């Protein structure tokens, strides 16, 4: 501050001018990047999806033809169906495990910090690492199956990773392992935020513990459910790394998801238009998932709660 306070009178207009414009100028690099690399690219990708672009991008308008082609491809519907199966199970299991562990952790547990640290560490790992480890654990000839055999149960079979009908469930196992500790932490933070006097009042009124949880505590965790679901849904729609590392999309196409479709058609098969159409639909899906939150946010603002 010493340097600036020594500025004389003649410097004042410059100072005032700088204070007026410097804040805006300092936003310019990020603002330009936002306009070009986010919004410009969104427009560009949508435009590509409306052209005949294949091996190279071009600007020949084709209307919705790429989308028509996309909707006739079995492999696209396989990807969408896989995402639906994966998404529903992933969100449901993460919420169930997360809520359950958070409630257990909230019972005056010794070493709670240690347990929390253990539950959360998978999130620090790259999804590729997660995929590689689970690929080894789920390996039918050497992994968990072989271990169960060595215990004497030789009829045990666990071949999900190489079974086209079951491989997507193997992806669910690894993905839930990775994210459920995070959901636990979210719920735990929510539980700690609940007003204790309400619970005490209910207990004085003679409500049993399960009843307190079912009718008071869990309903008041609504906002946590809300943000956890939105987060998990958008993570599910974007899932790519884990599937590539765990199954490579296989066996065959059996674990393809839209993100793999987009990558493979856009970059490996020279079908840029189709890749762009797939990306656009993924964004639309995320937007649809966000819609409830945006509406709630706008409602909140109208009611006068601003942040």
């Amino acid at each position, binding site marked *: *501050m010493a340097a600036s*306070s020594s*500025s004389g009178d003649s410097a004042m207009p410059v*100072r005032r001018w*700088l204070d007026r414009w410097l*804040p805006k100028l*300092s936003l310019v690099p990020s*603002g330009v*990047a936002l306009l070009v*690399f*986010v*919004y*410009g690219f*969104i427009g*560009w990708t949508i435009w*590509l999806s409306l052209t005949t672009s294949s091996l190279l991008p071009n600007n020949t308008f084709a209307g919705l033809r790429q989308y028509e082609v996309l909707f006739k491809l079995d492999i696209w519907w396989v990807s969408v169906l896989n995402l639906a199966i994966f998404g529903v199970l992933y969100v449901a299991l993460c919420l169930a495990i997360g809520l359950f*562990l958070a409630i*257990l*952790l909230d019972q*005056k*547990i010794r070493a709670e910090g240690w347990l929390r*640290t253990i*539950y*959360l560490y998978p*999130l*620090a*790992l*790259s999804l*590729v*690492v*997660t995929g*590689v*480890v689970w690929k*080894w*654990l789920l390996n039918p000839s*050497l*992994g*968990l199956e*072989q*271990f169960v055999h060595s215990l004497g149960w030789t009829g045990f079979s666990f071949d999900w990773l190489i079974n086209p009908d079951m491989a997507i469930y193997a992806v669910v196992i690894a993905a839930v*392992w990775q994210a459920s500790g995070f959901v636990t*932490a979210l719920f735990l933070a929510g539980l700690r935020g*609940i007003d*204790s006097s309400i*619970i005490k009042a209910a*207990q004085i009124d003679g409500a049993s*513990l399960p009843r307190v949880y079912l009718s008071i*505590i869990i309903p008041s965790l609504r906002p946590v459910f809300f*943000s956890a679901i939105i*987060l998990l849904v958008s993570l599910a729609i*974007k899932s*790519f*790394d884990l599937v*590539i590392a765990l199954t490579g999309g296989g066996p065959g196409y059996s674990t393809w998801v839209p993100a793999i479709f987009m*990558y493979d058609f856009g*970059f490996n098969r020279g079908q840029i238009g189709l890749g762009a159409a797939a990306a*656009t639909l993924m*964004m639309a899906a*995320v937007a649809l998932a966000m819609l409830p939150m945006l509406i709630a946010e706008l409602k909140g603002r109208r009611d006068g709660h601003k*942040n």
Partner: protein
Amino acid sequence: MATRTEDGVARGGPLARVLVYGLLLFAAAYFLLPLYVMLTTSFKTLGQISGGNLFALPAPFSLTGWRDAWSSACTGSDCTGLQHYFWNSVAFTVPAVLLSTAFGALNGYVLTKWRFRGSEIVFGLLLVGTFVPFQMFLLPMARVLGMIGLDNSVAGLTLVHTVYGVAFTTLFCRNYYVAIPDELVKAARIDGASFISTFRYVILPISTPILMVCVIWQFTQIWNDFLFGVVFTSGDAHPITVALNNLVNTSSTGVKRYNVDMAGAIITALPTLVVYIVAGRYFMRGLTAGAVKG
């Protein structure tokens, strides 16, 4: 924080306590199991892996897997291990983390303490941008990187990670600075402090926690990235995540070497794991800030 639990929602006999602890420890085992198997397998010999028990401890203790994963395993046609790719990842992660954090702090400062007409719109646009799937940016970015000569390079990855990281760091910093009383900044300005000196002497000294959150969050995100790495680079310029995937899917002799795979996985995971263990509380804060946006 623990005021409520002191009164105890939890009651019930010792049996219930045993059950609660039992379930919690079982969950801990479930989360730790892959890490345990990853570690023990990496120190085993191939003979022990094919003949032995998945959960057995390595005997004899072998460092072959680690040595091969670091310096001689094949990732595609190249057989020099992961070391080169490890340093690739360091080379773009460090500058991208620092740049995106610096821009995020500056943006957050302006958006909260120097608001102007339209600054809320800028923030709104930024917030929406954080939700867009990266798949929307891949095709145009590949073109642009090609045009400016940064395709297939560490510099290109630095640019990409900085650009898409700034949205998150700005969000974190903005939400942190918004809670700092405006009076603090106003007082400094009355004392004659300029835009820059206010930032330097008023804001920056109280920013350590949020800068930690930004650095740790960005480090984890950028180091662990696979999508940008696999799309924008090939061969020599791959980040370690892509190289690990190639290593696992390359079997030069037809024999899968799981000890090498697991050692490679640990090498890839180590930097972010260390950060998590050392600075876990900031990690959690970044996550909740990222989850409950705005």
